[in-house]
Structure formats: C-alpha cells, structure tokens
C-alpha cells in the first residue's frame, strides 16, 4: 500500500489501534495481572495527621490466620532501604531554578516507604501486612497496636508557612524553599508611577488526580537471579525502575518494571509510590509474589495530590491599560514530604503569561504541611498562575473601566516581538497570540453575547462570558531514546521510553512511522512496557510524549533511510546519491529500478557481499537531550448561566483554540482538549481535597464527598486547533495535552463573576459551588474564603 493511499500519516484523524482490546475487555491493567502462589498486601495507615510513633506491637497480628509477615519502618531501616529519590525542582535546561534568598540549600526531607519516626499526614503508610488473602491481611492490620503521641498539625497553606506553625521536620522549618524572582527595584518603580493598581488574593484549592484505575502493584523476587519484578502502572517505566532500585539499594539492572495499560495518570501517578517499593521489598521478605490493590478511599488519602497554591498578586497599569508590572507571593503546599515543587516553579516563571510585562517581582515559597504530598497535576502550576493573571485583568477592567478584549489585545505579545523574554527570564519562541484569541472570540460568538444575556435575564437567569489566554511551558525530563528496527517480516519495531496513559501512543507514534516509511500503522510495533527492553526514557509528563518521541523517532528514521540508501545502492548497482526513498521504496532516480524497505532489511541480514558496516539488522538509535522548552498557547471562551435562586452554574458554551504546532492526530487532540477542559472546570466548580483544619483529617475521602465532574456538568465543547509550527521542533510539534486545562480555571471563574457582576459580586473562590455563589449573591460571608484569607 502506498503511503498516500493509506491515509494514516501525520495529520490524519485515524481511529485508535489500542481501542479494540479496550472495548472488548481485553486491556491489561495492573490489577488484571496475577502470579501463581501470589499473596496479598494491605497497608496500615496513620490515623493522625501528625504524631510521634512509639512502640509497635505486631505479635497479635502475626498470629492471625493467613498472615505471613508484618513489616514496619523499623524493619525497613534494618534492611537498609533508602528514601525515595525525589528531585523537587526541575533541572531542565530551559527552566528557571528558584533558589533560597538566604543562600541556604533547598530542604529535602527523607521520604521512606513506611513512616519511621513520625507520621505526618493522615493515611501515611506505617506497616505492611502480607497474608494469603486480602481479608486476612486486613484482619492482620487491625490487630497491630501502635502507641502514637499525637502532635499539633497544620494543613492550611498560609498557616503552615507561619513561624509558629507546628513543625513537621525537626531539622528544618516548614518553609523548604523561599525564593524571589524578577527585578524588585524595577517593579517597585513601575508600581510607583502606575495610574492603576489592582490586587487579588486567592487560594487555588487542592485537588487530586483521580485516575479511574486505582493503583495496583504485583511484585516478585527471584532469589536465583536476585532480581525484582514489579508490575505497576506509572507515568514512565524506566524512571520507576531506577527509583525502585534506589529505594531497594540494588543496581538498577536488578529491577524489571512491566506496565501495559495504565488507566490514567494526569501527573499524580507520575512517579514511584511508597507502596510500590514496600510491595517489592515484602516480596523478597516473604519469598512469594505479593499483590496490592489500592482501594479508592486509600487513593483519596494518599495518592499524590495537586495544586494548592496561596497567592497574593498585584498588577500595575498605566492610564490606557498597558501593563507596567506585577508582583506578589505564591506559596505552594508541598504536603508532608518534599516530593515536588515544580508546580510552584513552573507557575511562577510564567506568571505574566503571554502579555508584555516590563517588570515583575514574586516571592515563591514551598511549605510543608500535614497533608498528602503534592505533585504536578494536569499542567502543573500553569493553570494556577493563568487563573491569577486573568482574574487580575478582569478585576482591572471592572475597577477601571477597560474593555476585557481590548485590554488583552493591547498587552498580548505580537509575533514581531518574539522571541520574547518575560520578566522572570523565560523566553517564548513563537506564536500568533492575538490571532488565536480573536478566533476564539469569533467561534465563541463574543459579539452576539449581549442578546443572549438579555434573553437569559428575561428567563430569570444570569448569563456571563469570559475569555482567557494561556501559555504552557513544556519541559520535563529532557532525555529520550528510541531504537527503531526494520524487520524482514514487514514489521517495524519502535522501542521508546514513554508510556501511554490513555494518550494513544500506539496509534500516533505509528502514524509518524507511517509518514516516513509508508508502512501501515498496524505493522508498527510500539514497545514501551518492559524495562528489560526499554533502557532509557523519561516517561509521559510535561507534554513530552509526542514532542520528544517524534523528535528522536525522526532522527532515527532519517538514519535508517540513509543506511537503507547505501544498501539499496549495492543491490541496484547505483550510487547512494542516485537513490531516492519514497513510498517505502528505494528507487534509482530516473529509472524504474527499485527495492522495498523490507527487502533492504532482509538483504542486510542475508547478503554477505555487502560491506561490513551495512550488514546486520537495519536499525538506528537516537538518544538525545532536548534542551528547548515548548510553548503551546491558546485562548478559551466560556459562557455560563446561573440560577440566582439556587446558585447553580450551567456551562452553556465552551470554545477553545489551542495551538499545537502540528496536529499528528486531530481526533486525539480534540479528545485531549475535552478531557483537559473537564479537569479545569472540575477544579473551578466542583473538586476539593478538604482537610479539617483542627485535626488534619481528610474530609473528602470518597466519591461521596469529592465532587467529580460528571457528564451532565458539561455541554458539547467547540474545540479548534491552530497550527503555527514550533521552530525548535523538527516537525513543529507543540504538546497538546495540557492546553485544555491551562485557562479553564480562569475562564470559568471569570464567566461566573461576569454573570453576577450586576448583583455586585466581585469574586467567587474555587470551587464555585452553588452554596458559595448563593452566599456571594446574598452578601453572606463565605466561610471558606475567610479561612483562606486567614
């Protein structure tokens, strides 16, 4: 089949290859795996938010029927296990690395798979019980007696940063990082001469990832080879392998990680979990495979969580609405461990978004608190700061009479100003920002809104509209590798270090290969699931899946074509320079002599008359560190209708234009945008990991209490793709996974406030629940805001 006829290449909305198994119940998720003779693990978890661990009595538990082992933090230290190797700040070459203002190193606390000295959040694992069944393990866990000495706890972000807050770690205050970015003097000067200053104080509440597949792990230790096998879904197999080896204190080749289908990630599943290491260790201790399945209530307690940023920000403008400077303070709540500060880092460095901002001055703090550790969640850090920037703009319009569209047009960076270095030091490479916003306004029928508002008002409903722009900085693990092999049987093997968590890599990566080799997508074998095959790779996060995979696949593919031309030259008795490669065939220019890709691969294996360097498998490797960040951007328009009696918000129209540089599979990109919008709107309207401030207990421990977005929370979305190629990428690709979420918080809340403006409402905190909206309309104090404002 010729490539043109196949219609499967880059840009085609082909249906996904992975679907066939997933719609017939043949997916292979973590809990679908079993091993003969497997045993079952259950974790005993901390009932206190903060407590010193005293004596642990496991004698009764060990006597329970079926219980094989009870292991605690003490056993773990005795066995020499190491803390999880967190790297809280991203060291990507394009990132701004925040440093402590006082010059001290950034604090990192040891995070062991089981608590050793204290428990620091409700749900932290304290012991692992292994038994012949889950029920027996649960009974065993219940029989463990622990002496806790409860300590005062702090969960609130701002409160945790206070000098007199209960301190989690003896060796350091709760403030693990206290940095300042930008130019304080220039910013102060700009504020002095500003005609207008607008202020905004908010808390971007904590939410959690909720991949629908709960975590699960199955591990086996082979005493003969001294190797551990772990089967568990994550954002990347190689990183999980290396981290697991570090915790177990063994060489990384002694660990094999397997993962097939992964039921969602969104960042919170992005790295090793304490339980994964504990399960592998327990498998060695009991000498049998150990399986663990996280129940949903445990997932709410101790899956890594996301967001949780306390912000105070100000924007200075001149008389005609030109931005002069911004300043403020961001406090990111890291939870009980110094797991990951990159949401704070990735947020503050682009807090000025794609607007021209001559100066900025921001304080950025990461604080520890008695809550579950946080990690990047769908577009870590960016939705938070986009929300703040866009709220500041709308507040300035309201206070000083600017038009919401005009002011954005005036301040958006023009293509002629790109590349543009923002006041924090990030350089945006390319984009048609105004054009994209104008298209979103047109598609969202901004101009027709007054009539729709009047019509709604006649029905007793309050209708509001808003537009928000965004930029996303995609960085993450900069190194990726692929090994591509052309097999003689008509199949192309692509080994790559990313893992699909629902993004459809088996389809889209194969579309790239189809584009270059004209091989049907079904003949491309994408191999990501086994670290005995995949040795290098950064996994899937920060918009790096397609971006980096296509990067290395293109380079390796070009190398194969070059090598293939030299082989074909021998076979066709021509010079390599005379050979063209089109439609999967090497052809002698201007003749009808040709040889197919797979014949060339077979010849390389079989023909002993080829020069030595051309003999052997037709294969190429690309292992590359990609130093550039990518900058997807776009604009969303949201229209809401509010019932002023009940405070219910209905999203009636939601329009997006997202620039993805080049769309490999538009169908999948639209799907990514839909899901991203739902996660952003979920935060704006519904979701909240709520902790009781008094005792640190989690109050949102199930789907009964944690409001998940459901089908009837949304309309059909109108999503549009813009394709302005990114100059630093060989195919021009910008990531497409996070654009849906980036401006969704901002545009939803701004639309709500616009709807309620006539009722005197100036702001509604997230989640904008009916109760909060009702209170805002009725002038009642919002208890939750009062708390956030401390």
């Amino acid at each position, binding site marked *: 089949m010729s490539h043109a006829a196949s219609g499967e290449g880059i840009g085609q909305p082909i*249906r*996904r290859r*992975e*679907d*066939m198994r*997933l*719609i*017939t*119940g*043949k*997916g292979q*998720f973590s*809990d*679908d795996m079993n091993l003969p003779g497997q045993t079952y693990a259950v974790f005993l978890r901390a009932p206190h938010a903060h407590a010193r661990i005293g004596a642990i009595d496991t004698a009764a538990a060990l006597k329970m029927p079926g219980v094989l082992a009870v292991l605690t933090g003490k056993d773990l230290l005795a066995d020499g296990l190491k803390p999880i190797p967190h790297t809280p700040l991203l060291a990507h070459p394009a990132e701004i690395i925040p440093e402590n203002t006082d010059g001290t190193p950034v604090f990192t606390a040891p995070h062991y798979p089981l608590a050793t000295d204290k428990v620091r959040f409700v749900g932290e694992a304290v012991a692992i019980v292994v038994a012949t069944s889950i*029920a027996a393990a649960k009974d065993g866990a219940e029989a463990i007696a622990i002496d806790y000495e409860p300590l005062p706890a702090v969960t609130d972000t701002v409160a945790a940063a206070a000098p007199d807050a209960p301190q989690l770690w003896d060796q350091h205050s709760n403030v693990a990082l206290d940095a300042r970015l930008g130019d304080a003097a220039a910013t102060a000067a700009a504020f002095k001469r500003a005609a207008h200053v607008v202020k905004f104080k908010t808390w971007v509440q904590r939410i959690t*990832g*909720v*991949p*629908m*597949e*709960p975590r699960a792990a199955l591990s086996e230790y082979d005493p003969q080879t001294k190797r551990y096998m772990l089967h568990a879904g994550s954002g990347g197999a190689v990183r999980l392998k290396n981290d697991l080896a570090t915790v177990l204190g063994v060489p990384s080749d002694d660990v094999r990680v397997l993962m097939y*289908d*992964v*039921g*969602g990630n*969104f960042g919170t599943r992005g790295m090793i979990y304490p339980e994964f290491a504990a399960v592998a260790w327990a498998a060695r201790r009991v000498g049998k495979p150990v399986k663990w399945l996280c*129940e*949903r*209530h445990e997932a709410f307690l101790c899956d890594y969580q996301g967001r949780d940023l306390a912000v105070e920000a100000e924007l200075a403008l001149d008389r005609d609405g030109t931005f002069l400077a911004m300043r403020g303070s961001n406090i990111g709540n890291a939870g009980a461990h110094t797991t990951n500060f990159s949401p704070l880092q990735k947020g503050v460095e682009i807090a000025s978004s794609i607007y021209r901002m001559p100066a900025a001055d921001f304080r950025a703090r990461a604080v520890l608190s008695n809550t579950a550790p946080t990690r990047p969640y769908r577009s870590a850090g960016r939705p938070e700061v986009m929300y703040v920037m866009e709220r500041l703009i709308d507040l300035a319009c309201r206070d000083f009479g600017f038009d919401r569209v005009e002011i954005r047009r005036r301040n958006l960076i023009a293509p002629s100003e790109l590349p543009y270095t923002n006041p924090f030091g990030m350089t945006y490479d390319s984009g048609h920002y105004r054009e994209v916003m104008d298209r979103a306004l047109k598609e969202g029928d901004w101009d027709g809104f007054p009539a729709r508002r009047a019509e709604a008002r006649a029905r007793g409903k309050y209708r509001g509209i808003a537009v928000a722009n965004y930029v996303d900085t995609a960085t993450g693990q900069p190194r990726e590798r692929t090994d591509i092999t052309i097999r003689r049987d008509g199949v192309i093997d692509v080994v790559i270090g990313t893992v699909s*968590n*629902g*993004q*459809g890599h088996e389809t889209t990566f194969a579309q790239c290969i189809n584009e270059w080799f004209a091989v049907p997508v079904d003949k491309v074998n994408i191999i990501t699931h086994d670290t005995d095959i995949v040795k290098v790779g950064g996994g899937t996060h920060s918009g790096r899946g397609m971006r980096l995979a296509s990067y290395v696949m293109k380079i390796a593919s070009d190398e194969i074509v070059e090598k293939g031309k030299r082989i074909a030259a021998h076979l066709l008795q021509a010079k390599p320079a005379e050979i063209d490669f089109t439609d999967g065939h090497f052809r002698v220019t201007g003749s009808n002599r040709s040889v197919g890709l797979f014949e060339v691969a077979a010849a390389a294996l079989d023909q002993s008359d080829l020069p030595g360097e051309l003999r052997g498998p037709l294969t190429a490797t690309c292992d590359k560190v990609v130093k550039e960040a990518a900058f997807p951007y776009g604009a969303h328009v949201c229209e809401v209708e509010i019932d002023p009696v009940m405070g219910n918000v209905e999203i009636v129209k939601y329009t997006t234009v997202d620039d993805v540089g080049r769309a490999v599979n538009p*169908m*999948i990109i*639209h*799907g*990514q*945008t*839909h*899901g*991203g*919008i*739902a*996660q952003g709107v979920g935060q704006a309207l519904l979701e909240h990991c709520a902790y009781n401030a008094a005792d640190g207990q989690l109050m949102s421990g*199930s*789907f*009964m209490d944690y409001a*998940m*977005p*459901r*089908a*009837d929370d*949304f309309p*059909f*979305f109108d999503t549009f793709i813009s394709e302005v190629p990114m100059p630093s990428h060989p195919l021009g690709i910008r990531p497409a996974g996070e654009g*849906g979420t980036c401006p969704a918080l901002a545009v939803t809340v701004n639309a709500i406030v616009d709807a309620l403006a006539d009722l005197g409402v100036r702001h509604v905190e997230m989640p904008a629940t009916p109760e909060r909206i009702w209170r805002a309309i009725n002038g009642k104090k919002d208890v939750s805001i009062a708390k956030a404002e401390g």
Partner: protein
Amino acid sequence: MPVVTMTVNGEARSAEVEGRTLLVEFLRNHLGLTGTHVGCDTTQCGCCTVHVNGVAIKSCTALAVALDGAAVTTIEGLAQNGKLHPMQEAFREHHALQCGFCTPGMIMSAIDMVRRNGHALDERTVRKQLEGNICRCTGYHNIVTAVQAGAAAMKGQ
C-alpha cells in the same frame, strides 16, 4: 463454601465462593473476566457495570451467592461471532475512550440506557443517565456522541 452457578456470556459457569464474594470478584478472580473493572468502593464510578438478566447493575454491589442462576453479560460477551456490538463500534468510531478503564462500564450502561429509553437518545437524557459512570479522561464529550450514535445503530440489530 457455597457453589454458585451463573450463565455468564452464554456459558454455564460455577465456582465455590465465600458468602461475602461480590459479583465483580466472582467475575474477575474466579472466572478471569478482567474486563469488568473496579474503580471505587462506594458504588459510584460505574466501572464495574454488567448486565444481570438483561438489566445493568453495579457488580461491586451485588453478592455472587444472591445471583445463583442468573444470566450475566460482561463486556467480553458483547461481540457476537467476532462482530462488535454497535455500542462498542460507536465508542471506537467516536473516540469515546482514552485510558479505557471506565469504558467497559460505560458501554454496558449505555446499552441499558437504550433498553430503557429507546434508540433516539437526546443529549440531555444521555448526560443525565450517565450520572452513575465517571470518566476522568474524556470530558464525556465523545462518550455522549458515541452513546447517541450507538443507540441509533442498535436499531438495525
């Protein structure tokens, strides 16, 4: 331990189970039908939806022993003679799945929605009646489209 027998996807299947064994455990652990998923512990996510005697139920909230003699259809039993069920086909055609974890439950629920409401499903009905099925990946947009298309395609069945 009691032995339960059910007709699962058209075949008689028996196993010895504990009194507390849930239908989903019977299907997944005893029969190896792992297409039915468990996504929660409070009967809310719908990942475990199967048909019992032709009606959708959440298999995480039914005891296997209580269903002795029942006819159960799971996602594995929908395709007939190698041909996908129209609702499966619609999910694939309309890209109604990403990670695919919620998908079996969604498809089983959707088919039951057609049984209850007929083939002309309007958007509002679909959205309302998907209340008991949670998806984190898709924003539901393509799921709603697929359910409508699948419902229409089932008419010719």
